[in-house]
């Protein structure tokens, strides 16, 4: 169901806060269109730190693996990244579907190390919103259909106070890949 407790602005605010804390920079300097790597100086471990902070705030599980890794697991080694560590045409096609405008810089033959710089602040916020949108109709613990979100960002069951059981970021990527593959038959 679409959760109505936490709006997009709140998500963006928390994403900026997590980035600011991880990278020791001012929240005011962070813009939604900023590349975490190119503009803000993030490294791979910083992504995990940012994700961890967001998980603590929202009670969610962000994706542990990047979409390219999921493609390789689901469609076979070499399907997304070739022997030279470069993106395949099929991987680029899929990522364009996934990332939309943010995928402008993507080209087949591009080094896989050049992909993380494409991730922006808005990409992270979009990932959080996608997970929050998987709020179940009913509490998985007691079956109550009532949720509450008091002063914090975690959504709890009104009846038993159990935290909401969202889909994980990895599950969402896998589900998306499965549905896109069924529709477009890319691999």
């Amino acid at each position, binding site marked *: 169901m679409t959760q109505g407790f936490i709006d997009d602005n709140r998500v963006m605010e928390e994403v900026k806060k997590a980035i600011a804390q991880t990278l020791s920079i001012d929240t005011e300097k962070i813009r939604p269109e900023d590349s975490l790597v190119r503009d*803000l*100086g993030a490294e791979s*471990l910083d992504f995990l730190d940012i994700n*961890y902070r967001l998980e603590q705030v929202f009670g969610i599980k962000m994706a542990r*693996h990047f979409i390219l890794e999921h493609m390789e697991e689901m469609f076979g080694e070499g399907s997304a990244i070739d022997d030279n560590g470069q993106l395949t045409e099929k991987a680029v096609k899929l990522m364009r579907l996934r990332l939309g405008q943010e995928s402008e810089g993507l080209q087949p033959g591009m080094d896989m190390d050049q992909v993380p710089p494409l991730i922006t602040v808005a990409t992270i916020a979009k990932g959080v919103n996608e997970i929050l949108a998987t709020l179940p109709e009913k509490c998985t613990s007691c079956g109550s259909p009532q949720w509450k979100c008091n002063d914090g960002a975690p959504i709890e069951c009104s009846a038993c106070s159990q935290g909401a059981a969202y889909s994980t970021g990895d599950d969402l990527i896998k589900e998306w890949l499965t549905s896109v593959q069924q529709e477009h038959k890319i691999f």
Partner: protein
Amino acid sequence: MSTRIEEEGVKGSGPLAGGSEGGQRRPLLSLFAGKVALVTGSSRGIGRAIALRFAANGADVVINHRRAETPNQARQVGIQALCQEIEGMGCRAYPILADISSRESVKQLMAEIADKCQRLDFLVLNAARAPFKPIERLLERELRELVDVNYLGNIFCIKEALPLLEKKDDDTTIAGKIVFISSLGSKFYNPAYPLGSMKAAMESVVRDLSQSLGERGIMVNAVSGGLVKTDSFKVLRQYMEGVDKLPEGLFVQPEEIADVVMFLCSQASRAIAGQTIIVDRGLSNRLYRPLG
């Protein structure tokens, strides 16, 4: 390839520098005065703590790192800051960029050490890199990288460092020392820690080399660290449920591991060969009963 920081660094003003007014570069009685240590992967975390401990004990330190610094200038943990801290203690810091998984890169690293330092007394094998996934889910590329960095890379370092480590001082029969940094993953299961298998392999290498290289005067041992809140912990806490809720008292400080490395590099450890010393505040003793 590398840049000496000395030109810009603070000289002779560190706590162990012995004062800069008389031109004394480092304390006369420091444990490793005149020695040179190479710590692989020492730009941060445990490696950084080891590098600083070497400097605190009077050794010049080669800071090996794999990547150039990030554009994030706000960080205080950068290589330049580390080198300045070492220089501040009155020792020399040599930052050298090298990917240990490439033998050619390791050869260049050792050639640069030979050229700039003319000696190497301690080789600390700390660099490690691995994905966090169950081992059966690793792609071939990831498996090869796992072995290349965490096994072959260490062997390359040992092989290429031998000519330098074998060079003997006049006053001792013991040549250089090698210390490998292992982890509890070598002995205990973690569902997303394939690095543990490489740590186990290297602990065996340490045992074997302590015999073969011991005959040539080179001491080889390992230190196995428990849970340490370095950058890697940011990854671990996402794969090991509840690890971030463990009591603070079970977490090891990087400096506590560094202190054991110092011991293994000192003459006080002369009777220890091929061993892996566990530094985990007793965590491994508690693994099979609930943590209170």
